[in-house]
């Protein structure tokens, strides 16, 4: 199979996956016990208002018509209207999305960097106290509720030492980074790190990093355990192979052997794991965003739960699902590009 036909078949396989996902969300919000409109009003008192909302949101139509309209809407980029004020949900979600994206990217960087470093060190010190310590760290990292770690970091580094901000995405006394305008065209990614650099404003860039630091560290550390374990076991296998012995025999330094020879072989599983862990990462992002008042998608869902705004919750959940499917698609394609065996 050529790379091109692999790409095409993998993309086609994603379609039924997304359909099932959309159906699942529909079943959870519309068909499971619990009428969204009744839940929104809490009590069945104002029947006329309830009926009006049902009509306005199309919830009075037969269930399969609702399903069809829902799926068709998503393909048009329409995620329905909010129960709170009938504003389009898609717009609100799009404005929250870059914040989650930025947090996710930086947390993944922390998780992979910490995971690979400790994983390699652990495999080098196989069965020595250092190895045991790192493994215990990995297991404990897995058992910490992410929001608890977040609060501990807030209270020590933020409240106690005044080193870092404990919440929000950017310094409220500054204007947010907006990107760059060239002629009439405006470039903006919504990612503050990129936008501040486009603006050419180093001060804003540093501020962005300062606000990103604690949330990404929190989420990244909790996730790093999985990467430590994976890197360690792969390195243990790789370090026994002949080419590593050969590299050592040629007198290369141990760091060079482990980091640029062996690690290269152990990296593909890490890439796969990045794709697999992305879903976990987004789940953790909901809690991290709540802890750090980070204005992303997760925060949006939690706020909407407070308003009992079920159409908005549905829209955000759908977007989370599509996001994960797309990332896993990208990871698979990247993997195929890096490892030709997959295409065979």
């Amino acid at each position: 199979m050529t790379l091109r036909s692999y790409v095409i078949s993998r993309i086609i396989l994603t379609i039924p996956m997304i359909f099932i996902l959309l159906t699942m969300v529909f079943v959870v919000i519309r068909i499971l016990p619990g009428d969204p409109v009744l839940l929104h009003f809490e009590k069945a008192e104002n029947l006329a208002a309830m009926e009006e909302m049902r009509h306005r949101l199309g919830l009075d139509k037969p269930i399969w018509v609702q399903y069809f309209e829902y799926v068709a809407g998503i393909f048009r980029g329409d995620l329905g209207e909010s129960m709170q004020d009938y504003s389009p949900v898609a717009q609100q979600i799009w404005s929250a999305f870059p914040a989650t994206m930025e947090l996710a990217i930086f947390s993944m960087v922390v998780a992979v960097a910490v995971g690979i470093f400790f994983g390699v060190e652990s495999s080098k010190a196989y069965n020595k106290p250092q190895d045991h310590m790192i493994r215990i760290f990995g297991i404990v990292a897995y058992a910490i509720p992410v929001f608890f770690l977040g609060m501990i970091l807030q209270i020590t580094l933020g409240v106690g030492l005044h080193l870092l901000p404990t919440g929000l995405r950017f310094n409220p006394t500054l204007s947010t980074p907006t990107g760059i305008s060239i002629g009439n065209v405006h470039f903006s990614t919504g990612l503050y790190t990129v936008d501040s650099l486009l603006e050419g404003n180093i001060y804003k860039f540093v501020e962005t990093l300062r606000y990103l630091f604690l949330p990404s560290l929190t989420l990244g550390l909790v996730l790093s355990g999985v990467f430590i374990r994976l890197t360690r076991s792969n390195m243990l296998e790789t370090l026994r192979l002949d080419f590593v012995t050969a590299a050592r025999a040629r007198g290369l330094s141990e760091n060079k052997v482990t980091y640029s020879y062996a690690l290269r072989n152990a990296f593909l599983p890490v890439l796969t794991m990045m794709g697999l862990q992305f879903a976990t990462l987004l789940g953790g992002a909901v809690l991290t965003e709540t802890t750090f008042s980070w204005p992303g998608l997760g925060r949006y869902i939690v706020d909407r739960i407070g308003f009992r705004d079920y159409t908005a919750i549905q829209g955000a959940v759908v977007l989370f699902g599509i996001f994960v499917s797309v990332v896993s698609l990208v990871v698979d394609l990247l993997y195929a590009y890096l490892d030709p065996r997959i295409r065979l």
Partner: protein
Amino acid sequence: MQKKSKARKSMVSSLMPSLGSLAKRGLAGWLVIIGIVLVTAIVVVTMISPWIRPHDPSTILVGQPLVAPNSQFPFGTNDLGQDVFSRALSGGGIMLQVSILSVAICLLIGVPLGLFSSYAGGIIDRIFCLIMDSIYAFPGLVLAIAVAAMLGRGVTNMAISIAVVYVPSYFRVIRSQVLSIKEMPYVEAANSIGAKTRTVLSRYILPNVVPSIVVIATVNFADAILTAAGLTFIGLGVPVDIPDWGWDLTNGRRLLTSGAWWVITFPGIMIILLALGFTLIGEGLSELLNPRLEQ
């Protein structure tokens, strides 16, 4: 009948080796021991807490609000003047109930489904796999949030919303195991002498997947506890005045700027210890049952 119970007993004893023999199995054995001790200690403390706690955990103003840890209140008091120490002793009840219930639901649904699907094969298997893979790929906590938001609050609803997320893990493990066991000569022999499907599944296949089920259930306990804590944190917890670590953490978040570290630290540590206990058991058991790498 007697034979059956004997067989069952030996199955249990092969799964649950004595603590002494575990200690001889190296690091993995010790992980299991430490895990069991942690979990047992927390369960026991939670159960006997009404007799050992110094104050009633729900009574407000047993001391001044937000007293730092001292000799009278070893873990301090929260903003309502409740004793944090007593709340730490008693606060595991809801989390334990939710996790036990959700693991039970997962076992009752995931295991039979995995057995059935892989044994049936064909189009049925394909469909189940596709559905389970889709749930598995979804961000677990987000799905649990959606289900919990619709079902409303309560221990059972919380357990169901967590179980929805984790059934696919059981399904996948069971399925892949059955696929290889199905090809074993003794299963073929049973089939060829005309044993019923039900008999083959329950007597020849199920006993061989039990070890994997035990491992995944213990790991799942830790996940269920952390998910329950997460659901509570975003406001989908159980609305009762029973002390709960998850609620204490949620409440403590508002008090962070005042520097009252003790309000969150102690319930947080309790959650970690409980989740850690289950993780250690799962970690150790999977290494003992699958010792490939450690050789």
